[in-house]
């Protein structure tokens, strides 16, 4: 059944939605959306390195994103620049360097549009394997660090005072972000991965009054976005990434109606 490219894209998208929901919640709660962007932009560099060294793409992206995250932490410690400036610096320079390197690799044919915005035709059986194994591992690790990560998201000092290890949880979480970017680049593309993380989550925030609900709703939102996005991508021949994100946006707008209702009820 995986012989059909559309089924492959769908199965890939479902796997990614399951991970993007919970990780996206933490990205929103911890205000890390620009951080996610930076990691995603650096992924392009990872792709070029994978091509030039004939190395596994997902592993290469994962390694480069992790290195960029480490560089960021060092720069935060050693410079007086604010975090958003450092994030912008890393995001755009790694994107630029990635594109320049592509320019040099004239002997390889790159589908730049596909890298930036995702390409459902590009998802092969091996990618499905990477996505589902990767997704399972990410969820497993997230489950293990959930308590310290969540507690320190609510309040760092409480978590630390009461014997949890917030710093370790934060470091592991950064690695998980690099991992989801690595597995979802083919479907959503470099420029839109953060959208996959935060738009279904933003929708879920409008509908939930507790964290568990928010995680579940953001998974559902992600799944719906993947279904609607991929079907319209097929129907209207649009790139897969933007179609999925546009679908998520529509869901978000619908969720705003619910907020309006709640406010009216309160008055």
């Amino acid at each position, binding site marked *: 059944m995986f012989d059909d490219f559309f089924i492959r894209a769908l199965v890939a998208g479902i796997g990614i939605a399951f991970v993007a929901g919970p990780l996206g919640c933490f990205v*929103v*709660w911890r*205000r890390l959306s620009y951080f996610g962007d930076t990691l995603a932009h650096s992924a392009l560099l990872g792709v070029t390195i994978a091509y030039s060294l004939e190395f596994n793409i997902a592993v290469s992206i994962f390694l480069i994103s992790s290195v960029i995250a480490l560089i960021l932490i060092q720069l935060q410690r050693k410079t007086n620049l604010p975090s958003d400036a450092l994030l912008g610096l890393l995001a755009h320079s790694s994107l630029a360097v990635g594109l320049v390197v592509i320019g040099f690799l004239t002997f390889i044919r790159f589908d730049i549009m596909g890298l930036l915005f995702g390409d459902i035709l590009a998802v092969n059986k091996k990618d499905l394997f990477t996505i589902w194994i990767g997704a399972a591992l990410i969820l497993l690790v997230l489950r293990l660090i959930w*308590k310290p990560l*969540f*507690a320190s*998201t*609510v*309040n760092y*000092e*409480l*978590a*630390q*005072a*009461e*014997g*949890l290890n917030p710093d370790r949880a934060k470091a592991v979480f950064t690695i998980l972000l690099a991992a989801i970017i690595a597995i979802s680049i083919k479907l959503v593309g470099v420029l839109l991965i953060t959208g996959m993380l935060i738009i279904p989550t933003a929708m879920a*925030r409008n509908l*939930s*009054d*507790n*964290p*568990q*609900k*928010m995680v579940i709703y953001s998974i559902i939102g992600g799944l719906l976005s993947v279904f609607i996005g991929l079907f319209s991508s097929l129907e209207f021949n649009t790139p897969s990434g933007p179609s999925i994100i546009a679908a998520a946006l529509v869901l978000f707008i619908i969720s705003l109606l619910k907020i309006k209702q709640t406010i009216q009820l309160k008055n």
Partner: protein
Amino acid sequence: MSMGNNILVKLNNVGFRQNQKWLVKGVSLQVEKAKIVTLIGPNGSGKSTTAKIALGLLKNIEGEVEKFTNKIGYVPQKISIDWTLPLRVRDFMLLTDKLKEDTMEEALSLTGVVDLKDKSLGNLSGGEFQRVLLARAISKKPELLVLDEPVQGVDFTGEIALYELIKEISEKLNCGILLISHDLHTVMSATDYVVCLNGHVCCSGSPKEVAKNNEYKALFGEQAAQTLSIYEHKHDHIHTSDGDIKKN
């Protein structure tokens, strides 16, 4: 103070410096089981910093902290919770420990907010939130409680009830308490040992001893001294701008 095996946390001559300025320096104290140690002192005297040192929240401290327990409950002075995170009282109660439903309800009843357990944390008043914070800290039956102004924003009658509750918890759970408070009246009556801070330990001892101390009087004024007893003495040192202390 007493038997060594009852000690929960011990601070040996600790200090903390930030931007070349000592926030607190030369503090030694210990908290024992079933005892309440209260830190008093004016704003900026290093009370919260001392509590954070005891909890191990600050890096690069001077001196030494010996901790003999990991079962700790903490009520911080300031807590900022980001409301992008939807959180009910019950979610907050389960933050650092799993609790049974009845344990959670029991703790919330003790601080008088059990009816709020399904409410969103963002909708609570300051006093209600403070009661939830206290309930959360005691619900896990800790051996050491660190309470940094735990009753701020609570109404007057509630304040007295909560201080009574704190004393009761200390006895019932055999739990040591490090308490920070501005409320001299209530605190002095419920405390076993008082440490008066002003960047360093000005004086310490039982509430009665401290009340007799000149520096306590210098810090809190005549009236505060009279609430307990009348005494006299004079300052033997001055505070320099870098937080250092010079003898006269």
